[in-house]
């Protein structure tokens, strides 16, 4: 295999030029925080947690969408980036209504883990407390917009993996909402196959099965990644 030399945090590596900075970091145990990334589905660079500094480029670039290039010098988790990651985490929490103690995902939530990782001891910004709906119309699942962080992992999984395209995004700015079909209740969806993939892809307590209670949620986003690996191998 053709490889190219790159440097990440002073560590010299020879890597596959087809890979993203994030893939290379993960393979080499270099920690990068992510949220909208889910291995197996297409990356969109939306959460901005995985930003890295690259020598010679004056903008911070998202590791999940940026391919490595020969002689690239990358720095992850610099003081500046850490500061920004903490602000991002705070904005996530302030944007909708996150009450961990009564959430089904308590203890199993990627957003909660992010809060710990960035040492978010409190939130410095006023909570927006938007009015959000809880859609319980699906016979087995619930969609709670209070907990949604708009990572669109559900949208991409449903579209790219299940091929159903039940989920999409409506509106703009802080008014964006995940919608089922053309903004009809999930239970009335004519595209959803009730496969449950979005449930596992969702990093928070926004999508969950009705059969569970607070703190009991088990999410396995890795099943999506494994499924996609298997599909690739079959090809």
């Amino acid at each position, binding site marked *: 295999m053709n490889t190219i030399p790159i440097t990440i945090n002073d560590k010299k590596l020879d890597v596959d030029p087809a890979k993203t900075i994030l893939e290379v970091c993960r393979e080499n145990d270099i920690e990068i925080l992510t949220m909208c990334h889910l291995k197996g589905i297409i990356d*969109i*660079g939306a959460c*901005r947690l995985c930003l890295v500094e690259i020598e010679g480029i004056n903008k911070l670039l998202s590791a999940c969408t940026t391919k490595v290039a020969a002689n690239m010098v990358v720095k992850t988790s610099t003081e*500046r980036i850490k500061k*920004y990651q903490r*602000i991002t985490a705070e904005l996530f929490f302030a*944007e909708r209504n996150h009450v961990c103690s009564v959430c089904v995902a308590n203890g199993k939530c990627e957003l909660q883990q992010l809060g710990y990782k960035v040492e978010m001891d409190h939130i410095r910004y*006023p909570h927006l407390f938007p009015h959000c709906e809880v859609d319980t119309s699906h016979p087995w699942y619930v969609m709670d917009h209070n907990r949604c962080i708009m990572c669109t992992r559900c949208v991409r999984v449903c579209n790219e993996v299940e091929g159903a395209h039940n989920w999409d995004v409506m509106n703009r*700015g802080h008014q964006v909402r995940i919608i089922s079909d053309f903004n009809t209740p999930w239970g009335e969806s004519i595209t959803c196959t009730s496969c449950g993939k979005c449930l596992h892809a969702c990093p928070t307590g926004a999508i969950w099965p009705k059969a569970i209670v607070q703190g009991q949620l088990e999410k396995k986003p890795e099943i999506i990644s494994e499924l996609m690996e298997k599909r690739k191998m079959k090809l």
Partner: protein
Amino acid sequence: MNRQELQALAGKAKGKHEQFKHKICVCCGASCISSGSEEVLKKLQEEIKTRGLENEVEVIPSGCMGPCNQGPLMKYLPEQTIYQKVDCNNITAIVQSQLIEKKPIEELLLFADSREKPFVNSNEDPFFKRQMKIALKDCGDINPENIEDYLAAGGYRALEKAFFLLSPEEVIAEVKQSRMRGRGGAGYPTGLKWETVYKYVSDQKYVICNGDEGDPGAFMDRSVLEGNPHRVLEGMVIAGYAVGSSKGYAYIRGEYPLAIKRFELAIKQATKLGLLGKNILGSNFSFDIEVRIGAGAFVCGEETALIASIEGKRGTPRPRPPFPAEAGLWGKPTLINNVETFAGIAPIITNGGEWYSETGTPKSAGTKVFALAGKIKYSGLIEVPMGTTLREIVFDIGGGVQNGGDFKAAQTGGPSGGCIPAEHLDVKMDYESLISLGSIMGSGGLIIMDKSSDMVDVARYFMEFCMDESCGKCVPCRVGTKMMHDLLQKICDNKGTQIDLDRLEELAVYVKETSLCGLGASAPNPLLSTLRHFRKEYENRIMNHQ
């Protein structure tokens, strides 16, 4: 049509115009139409007919002449005499004295109500005297709905020259030599962009004209598309030839129905004459253009969002790299330029890149169109050499602040730009100088503010715009603009604290550095620039609640 036939047709069109002794242009840009210029045109045509002057006087609807506030405008050529606020009732009188008695009616001339002595030859009026028209040349002098008018004015000769005398590499070399920079906002060197697209090998490449123009108050691109659509079209075909593309898209916002109508008409006319379509002018180069209509989202002016929108997807930006030059529309190499950028191409090819580079400053060549608005005496559309000072624009061209007020600041670059205070009135209007003051050139919006403007409220207004127009994809912009807006609103309501101000500054830098696309990355600019130049106003709001 082949090359010889084009030359013959252009000659014939020119001859036809030369038969007339006089030409009267009635501005039929969107602004003048809204003040009734179409009736004026009809009435004038009747008047000329009743007087039996049809063979002596040519009457045409034209594009924008510039001083839009004074419309409807009517221009007499070759005298260059402009009448303002013309209505159907004074047409007979104007024709009688201007054409028959050769005595212009002074009190109806352009700026007659505000200048001590209005100018009979409008080119001598300071509003026009300081201007230099390259992109807007012919705009206001020809009928945009008639391709023969454009041909008579030398139109499509650049295309002919490019096809028959220059190789694609040579066309790119001219554009590079012109040192022209993209007029869509970022000022990226146009020649370099063309060369990059040219170098990518692909079975299909695309050329896109960005006519989304979403900045509030901006109407430069609209005026060019309405006033001289063939010029933009010619620029696109030349670009297609240079980069090796056979397909172009013109993305024009839906709020510009007249621009869309005229550009579509231009496509039809050009196709009919063989200036567009298969084997243009008998060469082996083919190029088609399709119009795509934008639905009015500001973010769809951002190139990757615009491309997604053309592809029929939700118009949201995606991270770059890869840049559109490498992977753009349908994943193919794509050249995307602004309307005004394309409008500058034909003159560069005709007169040479060196000619263009002689105007302007070393780093910002050529001219720039501005939409001058706000508290300014003479507002409208102007085109000046790059490097013209703000003072010249405000006081010489614009006639100073309205009602003799004091100049406080000029806002450039719209929601992505900043405010320039009075102490920097002598700043040269070019890319670098504006950036050094914390503002940007942007697409050419220029809003003049007097002492009555509250700068905190100005920052709040633009933040509200960005908050509403954020596509909502990335966190810093989606939530950050909302937070900054709410904090600014709090300070405007005299409820802000010093901590709010600190938070605001921290968020501004964060949003600027982490946002996915240019909308978020530049949304903090109005805030940061007012903080830089008018910090006292923020502190006054916080400390003294005033």
